[in-house]
């Protein structure tokens, strides 16, 4: 198990692979210079467009109430103030903590379940495993509205406390398909069949093989699923609105309450939107490569 393990291949890794070298236009020629200039001009233009909402968020969140008018909306604040951040944090703080209590267990539990499932479906297969896998996968694409009405009754019937415990339960369940998919593809790529066969010859059972051979090399897969599940349960609004309220729900509900009023306080709303986005943005900036891995898995065909 020494050779292939060193080269884990993840969905999305092609993005990190070096680009092809291509010299169809003679470098230094006038055409090449023009093409290059146009290309970078476009790239930078789109950077400005994409960052524009972020600029608005930051700038507005630091403005005082007097400056949130019609004039000079796009200008920097004449006077920077943290007042709106304080106000937003007062409104969102409790739900921020609750959302951490939601997203962390969800990420860990569904990743473990996904690892076990992915292992069975890629390396300890049984007849009909492909059909079973497809049936599991379907659960990832359904509009959750189609289960939501009875789901509300079932979680009550099961006696799960409403709010965060209920949301942990449902996010874990509906996260199983994507986690299974990510791990199945991961194991199918990095774990040679021979290792499993050898392990079987040595008399190791499924759990033993999974525990002592597979899990130790699963870290990259776990990083991808944990990020994915953390982000999607942090950002979720649909389950939250059906299964919780502003007093016991996650931060998206609280933000919507803060920003959704008829005449919203834009400075506080925008500070709130930034606070809400901070954890997932941090994850993205620090672990971007693995974040992309999860995204690529979402396209199934890896």
């Amino acid at each position: 198990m020494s050779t292939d393990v060193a080269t884990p291949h993840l969905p999305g890794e092609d993005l990190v692979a070096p680009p092809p070298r291509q010299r169809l236009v003679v470098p230094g020629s006038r055409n090449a210079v023009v093409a290059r200039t146009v290309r970078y001009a476009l790239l930078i233009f789109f950077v400005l467009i994409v960052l524009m909402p972020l600029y608005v968020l930051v700038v507005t969140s630091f403005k005082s109430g007097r400056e949130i008018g019609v004039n000079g909306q796009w200008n920097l604040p004449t006077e920077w103030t943290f007042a709106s951040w304080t106000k937003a944090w007062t409104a969102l703080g409790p739900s921020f903590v609750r959302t951490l209590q939601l997203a962390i267990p969800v990420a860990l539990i569904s990743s473990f379940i996904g690892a076990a499932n992915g292992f069975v479906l890629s390396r300890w297969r049984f007849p009909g495993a492909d059909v079973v896998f497809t049936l599991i996968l379907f659960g990832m694409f359904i509009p959750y509205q189609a289960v939501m009405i009875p789901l509300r009754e079932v979680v009550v019937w099961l006696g799960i406390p409403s709010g965060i415990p209920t949301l942990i339960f449902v996010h874990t369940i509906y996260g199983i398909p994507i986690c299974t998919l990510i791990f199945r593809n991961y194991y199918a790529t990095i774990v040679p069949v021979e290792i499993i066969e050898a392990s079987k010859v040595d008399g190791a059972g499924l759990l033993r093989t999974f525990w002592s051979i597979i899990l130790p090399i699963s870290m990259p897969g776990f990083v991808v699923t944990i990020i994915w599940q953390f982000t999607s349960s942090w950002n979720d609004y649909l389950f939250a609105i059906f299964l919780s309220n502003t007093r016991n729900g996650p931060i998206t509900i609280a933000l919507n309450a803060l920003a959704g009023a008829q005449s919203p306080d834009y400075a506080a709303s925008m500070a709130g939107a930034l606070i809400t986005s901070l954890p997932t943005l941090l994850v993205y900036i620090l672990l971007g490569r693995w974040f992309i891995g999860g995204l690529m898995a979402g396209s199934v065909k890896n």
Partner: protein
Amino acid sequence: MATNTQVPAEVRPPGGSQPGRTHRPGRMHWHSRLRQWGPGLLLLSPSLILLAIFVYGLIGWTINLSMQDRHTARPSKGFVGLDNYVNLFANDISDRFVHSLKNLAVFTVVFIGGTLLLGLLWAFLLERGAKAEGVFRTVYLFPMAVSFVASGVVWRWLMNAGTGENAGGINAIFEDLGLGFLENPWWTHPNWGMAAMAMPAIWQLSGYIMALFIAGFRGISHDLREAAYVDGATSYQLYRHVLFPQLTPTVLSALIITGHMSMKMFDLIMSVSGAQWITEVPAVYVWQTLLTSDYAKSAAISVFLLVVVALVIVPYLVHVNRAEKRS
């Protein structure tokens, strides 16, 4: 075709990328089969049971509910077959359901078209490698990490419907640049508002589609480019006749992903406009109907959505499954 864009041959483990077969052909006693497959099935069974109940069971429950005469919080007054579905199309007040479908159609066309175009353009600009490529990619993709609820806050501000002296948000920029004719009411426009509503969604997901396309470009064998180069193809010919045709599977994935997301669009609309007639789509209608305790109608709209999504997703899953077996 499903794998050729993803796994370079040299990193494929011996035995190919196809999941290994742990069973051998030939006759086996049932107990030895059980020994081989049993533990795997056992490990998988909690998930299978949960998904059987919470995906398929609850879908069945919703389908049943959608065929009941249950329009209040009280128990059903009986089975009515497909009446609730027929009523959605034939007897809905002000044709509300049809209206929500029209909104969804406009949104979907603009959203899919916009993300695919921008995603492809960005991938095209970056696929040969650019200076600071990583920075561009990171910026283009960052909106994906933000929730629709949070981005809705800023897009509501940006898409301020005021014009002229009252211009705000993007309209204010148009006003300042002397592009007053571009000012528009955005999502509050009665016919084309949903096209504006698609803008935040395009902003958020184009980076994702770009990532798919870059992976697609980079998965194309270098030999193909070499061959085109040796044959003296121009850049235009290279892309038009060699590279773009190779991206067909990526386009298919991108269509499926954006398409099924669009059908389910809920968070963004709730955040930008709230539940309003003018921007109502079926996913929002489900929620609004549930608030009035019209369970059967809410279920019928949900099932309708599910069927539309399934019509797209099921053939795709079958296709992927087959392609994997072939490889």
